[in-house]
């Protein structure tokens, strides 16, 4: 296979698109993990909830955009309810308890979704205006919907950056990450702050789910498949850091996509093609984990650790 500039460009866009998707998930997870010191395995469930709600709202309103727009506050609400009802009591417990409890939530959500919508994947179609292609360069068409995902993802990243670095809410969130008792002793309701952060993370996961609907299969358990990569992202990026989540997501998205696309032809230039046929896919699927291992070895705190965490 010939590797052309156009192909490399297209795959880079693919990697970027996958990266921003991971970023939307990782941002919420890393905030919750970093600020509340809380391991939330059920983050993938909120992604699934977002996908289902967006699909349901889209079917009801007849508009994909409206469906996604409604799914955002709805997932935020689901996140807040989960935090208030189930997770609040777990902050003081150790991580193993949190893992067990949130694993239970995964099962709960999967069954709940199966009861309401059934186990079969449900059909979601692309909005017609995003069904076509855009020309990135002459001769390089790119699906408009995926380009849209990149756009939305980058926009959200910028907004999040503004929120965290430029607003008082963001300052309090960061302050809470370093010293929650002090934030509380200065008159800030830290519980409410946690609930908001959790809701925000849920809404971001919901957004990722809503956008994933038309390209992936919307079915129970869809959240777990992506969750592992998301954990890899926040470990690479540095726990608790939005910037780390962004960089980690792009790194993982690029490494995974480019690895799948070009590792085999690259290997074939070094070792025999049949051996490359065998090793290529195996190595490509391990690539992000190898990357994570390398980061853990050389920079155990991640590439951009959140400042001020002890």
């Amino acid at each position, binding site marked *: 296979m010939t590797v052309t500039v156009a192909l490399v460009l297209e795959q880079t866009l693919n990697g970027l698109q996958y990266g921003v998707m991971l970023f939307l998930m990782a941002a919420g997870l890393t905030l919750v993990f970093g600020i509340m010191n809380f391991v939330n395995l059920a983050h993938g469930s909120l992604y699934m909830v977002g996908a289902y709600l967006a699909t349901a709202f889209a079917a009801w309103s007849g508009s994909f955009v409206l469906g996604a727009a409604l799914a955002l506050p709805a997932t935020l609400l689901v996140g807040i309810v989960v935090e208030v009802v189930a997770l609040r009591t777990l902050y003081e417990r150790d991580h193993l308890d949190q893992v067990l409890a949130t694993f239970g939530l995964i099962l709960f959500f999967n069954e709940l979704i199966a009861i309401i919508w059934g186990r079969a994947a449900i059909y979601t179609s692309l909005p017609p205006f995003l069904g076509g292609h855009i020309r990135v360069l002459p001769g390089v068409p790119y699906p408009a919907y995926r380009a849209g995902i990149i756009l939305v993802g980058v926009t959200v990243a910028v907004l999040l950056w503004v929120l965290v670095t430029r607003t*008082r809410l963001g*300052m*309090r969130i*960061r*302050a809470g*990450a*370093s*010293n929650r*008792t*002090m*934030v*509380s*002793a*200065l*008159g*800030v*309701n*830290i519980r409410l702050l946690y609930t908001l952060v959790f809701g925000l993370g849920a809404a971001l996961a919901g957004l990722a789910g809503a956008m994933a609907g038309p390209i992936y299969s919307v079915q129970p358990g869809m959240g777990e498949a992506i969750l592992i990569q998301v954990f890899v992202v926040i470990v690479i990026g540095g726990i608790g850091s939005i910037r780390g989540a962004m960089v980690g997501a792009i790194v993982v998205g690029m490494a995974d996509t480019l690895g799948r696309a070009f590792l085999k032809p690259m290997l074939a230039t070094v070792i025999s093609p049949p051996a490359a046929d065998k090793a290529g896919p195996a190595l490509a699927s391990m690539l992000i984990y190898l990357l994570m291992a390398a980061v853990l070895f050389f920079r155990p705190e991640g590439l951009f650790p*959140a*400042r*001020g*965490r002890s």
Partner: protein
Amino acid sequence: MLTVDSIETAYGVSQVLFGVSLAVGAGQVVTLLGRNGMGKTTTVRSIMGIARPRAGTIQFEGRAIHGLPPYRVAQAGLGLVPEGRQVFPNLTVRENLVATAANRAGSADPWRVEPVFELFPQLAARARSLGGALSGGEQQMLAIGRALMTNPRLLILDEATEGLAPLVRAEIWRCVERLKAGGQSLLLIDKDVGALTRIADAHYILEKGQIVWSGTSADLRARADIQHRYLGV
């Protein structure tokens, strides 16, 4: 203004406070003295709601505040400069001041960033530095500024001069005096008896979780035996 009445506080099974009572009047500067480990910081933590007294009452401006979570206590009008300063290391100086700022009492002339920078010109120069990058003295000033930004009616300073160079210490005391002159009520915990007797109106001495002596600055100056026995000076 603040009335603490026979509070008892324990961490798990080990009781630290055995019926501590004290009072701070409006515009007063009151100190809480005693050697290390006698319960001074626990008293502050109990007042702030960080530790929960198992008995006794705490009233602030006529409202019972014991049992409230820390943020409600703070919102009621208490400002804390904690032991060890505890500035937010990952926020800049300006962000440290702004993040939790409030003017809940609706003061006509509230503390804002500029007056704080006026009080501590050193901070103004480092407005964009991270809290964690400041020197100990600067962090102390920042912690005081941060508490002032919540416009408290009573400001509590817990070991505000501990571990600081004499020059910096003097700077802090100068600022405390300015606050007092401005009518700020203060509860001070410190070991610098000389400075305290100069500034404060009344003193309480804690020994093994109990108030063993209280009186005015004049009283305390006159009682070298008390100073020697309980404060080791």
